[in-house]
């Protein structure tokens, strides 16, 4: 069975499990494993090249931003200077900041943070790209998300391509009226770019008002939803969904238990000699 046919509830719960894991884990190795699971899910859902490109750009920019900023602004101790960008004897910036350095621990911390962020991002993309919005809506409702909220989220997904096209046309119209990204007056560039948000924003407000009217004209009412709303389709969990969920629960509970045992050992609360291997595993891998 293609992985995209998994029950959407399973996909959402996998995201939640991995979300818990990436918070609990704090070594580059284990977080890299979680990230690779996310990449594997993406590959198995056969996205388009455009989606691959989009994901690659997201990952590239977030990794660069997080690692770079953490490497420079890391202020915990100990910290080891790898190299110096601005020496402390350089006038103004150097004397004011005491020097701008790249720290080894900062790089590592940035890598961990970016792996956490990119893992959840990747699995989020997997869910959105491999699930019909209608199935996502049903899954949210089954997971007891308020219907109005679930409906709002899934409807907004449908309008993302339209908003992207409109944004492209706004920029296109501006460029055909002589707007240049690169010109001698950056204030003008910023002003024009901000102005280009105006039609996009106003169109979206109009569309939202219009959609609201349409929804109400089709008997939608937040008060009635919980009481009598029926559904044309229902979701049924297949055996493979149950296996995946069981594996997910096992992984989350396992990691939390191991971490708790290590916490007890590290804080002198409980120590068992026969668990030395476990302590080493948690310290080195998890």
């Amino acid at each position, binding site marked *: 069975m293609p992985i995209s046919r998994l029950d959407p509830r399973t996909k959402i719960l996998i995201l939640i499990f991995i979300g818990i894991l990436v918070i609990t884990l704090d070594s580059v190795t284990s977080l890299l494993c979680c990230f690779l699971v996310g990449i594997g899910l993406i590959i198995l859902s056969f996205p388009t090249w455009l989606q691959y490109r989009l994901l690659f750009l997201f990952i590239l920019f977030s990794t660069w931003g997080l690692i770079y900023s953490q490497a420079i602004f890391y202020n915990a101790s100990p910290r080891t200077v790898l190299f110096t960008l601005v020496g402390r004897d350089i006038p103004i910036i150097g004397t004011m900041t005491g020097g701008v350095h790249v720290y080894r621990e900062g790089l590592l911390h940035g890598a961990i943070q970016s792996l956490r962020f990119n893992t959840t991002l990747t699995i989020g993309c997997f869910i959105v790209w491999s699930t019909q919005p209608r199935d996502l809506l049903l899954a949210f409702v089954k997971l007891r998300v308020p219907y109005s909220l679930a409906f709002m989220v899934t409807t907004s997904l449908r309008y993302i*391509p339209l908003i992207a096209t*409109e944004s492209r046309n706004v920029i*296109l119209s501006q460029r*055909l009226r*002589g707007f240049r990204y690169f010109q001698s007056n950056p204030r003008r560039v910023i002003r024009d770019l901000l102005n280009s948000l105006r*039609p996009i924003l106003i*169109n979206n407000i109009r569309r939202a008002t219009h959609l609201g*009217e349409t929804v109400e004209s089709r008997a939608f009412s937040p008060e009635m939803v919980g009481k009598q709303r029926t559904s044309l389709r229902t979701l049924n969990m297949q055996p493979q969904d149950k296996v995946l969920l069981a594996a997910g629960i096992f992984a989350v509970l396992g990691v939390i238990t191991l971490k708790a045992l290590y916490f007890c050992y590290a804080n002198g609360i409980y120590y068992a000699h026969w668990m030395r291997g476990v302590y080493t595993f948690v310290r080195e891998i998890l």
Partner: protein
Amino acid sequence: MSQIEIRDVSFTYPSRSEPSLKRVKAEVKCGEFILLTGPTGCGKSTLLRTLNGLIPQASGGLLSGDVTIDDSNLSDHPLASICQSVGLLFQNPGDQFFCTVVEDEIAFGLENLGVPSFRIDSRIDAALAQVELPPEFRIRSISTLSGGEKQRVALACLCAMRPRVLLLDEPTSHLDPKSRRDILNILGQLNREDGMTVVIGTHRVTEIAPLCDRVWLMNCGELALDLPVNQAFSDLDPYRDLGVEVPDLAEVSEQWGLSERPITVDQAEKLFLQSNRLSSTSPSSSEVSEYIGHEHSHQGAQSVLASIEDMTFQYPRAASSALRRISCEISEGEIIAVMGANGAGKTTLLLSILGLLRPTIGKILIKGVNGTRLKLHNLAGQIGIVFQDPDLLLQASTVLDEVAYGPGNLKLSHREIHERTTEVLTALDLDSLRNEAPFSLSRGQRQRTATAAAYSLLPDVLLLDEPTAGQDFSHLQQLMTALCASVEEQNKTLIFCTHDAQLTLQYAKRILLLRKGELIFDGQPMDAFSNPELLEDASLVAPLRTQLSWRLANN
């Protein structure tokens, strides 16, 4: 017995001081078909929203008077319950869907009403049958539907809820002629066979009049006229005074000095044959031309601005080509209409002329240079475009700033910018609105502002994508008349995509007819509209006066 009663209804929107409806009184009998028309902003949409309870229940505002449906006052019922008696279909098919699959969309209202799942299934099938769509449409993705199919699905969504009254707000304005004809046929059937009462708000009087029983003409929130259809057009002046379209054939009969005002080709043919105004034999070609009107002389050789050479274009992941082996040249001083059904490739052709789409095969030369190699900002002053949604072009705080933005980017002197802005504002009748915020204007005024903003760069070629969508008759005439006059005077080129045959006959000197990406005709509009087979091939419908001329010629 009256099914809908509107008693002294006045309504003021929350943010306004002036009422949008003023003491409206009317009655609709069960099974009647009402044509509701009037200029933009006259209150048509407000009245329709009042009839299904959206006003004031969803909008807020101050409503006085009563609206009753089947003797039941709407103010006594929540919106969710009114939906079961009254369905409202909106103008833009793309903006009224929230699901991705047809069956989910149709089921949405039924699910909200708490209809059991096993009944929803059968009601979806029945609703699809009512709008003449096959059951296979249930699992079609909404994004793959054409404009006409979307509007049918939207209608099916309402039919599934089995309303007794159907309200429609400009349901055909975004559709091509064939889809419009299909939708109107379905509405006629729902009215005649299923007994649904229909109230349709529209600018397209010629098209809807043959279906309707009564005509309501609105002006400034008041019901200026409420007459049975056979009396409604005996005097056309009230419509003309308000800038509302008058039925084409009624106008022809008035021009010919006949007393009756036909609204269908059958009526007109009978009337003309009975009258002595035409010879008993076939009318001469000049008489037929006079009916059709607006024959344009073809201009002599002009320098070529754009040349499309054997171009094929296919969108990524599309099953077939959007444009196939198109070859044509566009010269200075031309006014060209691009026509064809929805999805025929009209907008793709415009975007190709802009150099935005790289041809899969063939090439486009703009002034001898490969179009895809030109930088967009370098095209400023050479090519301008106004999209179907004019709002995408508006970004300044005032109309004046909007129009001056382009010339400012061209680094013209202040004096030149001022002169050019004033000239364009005057030409498009926007001078009085120069200090208004563009988004506070009416749809027609926004369209003119967007066109003025693109035209102020005095581009060699101006492209308009569907300038007719959502425009009323007088605004459209005003825009096109001013623009064409200015384009001719400056020896510029205007290319517009449209479904409106009358607009093409009136303004275009040349027509490009597209069918499924192929250019099937390139010539004078008169030649195209004299060829019924060609029009059928391009899914176009000739104006009624043209159809009449064919009939008379055959007699």
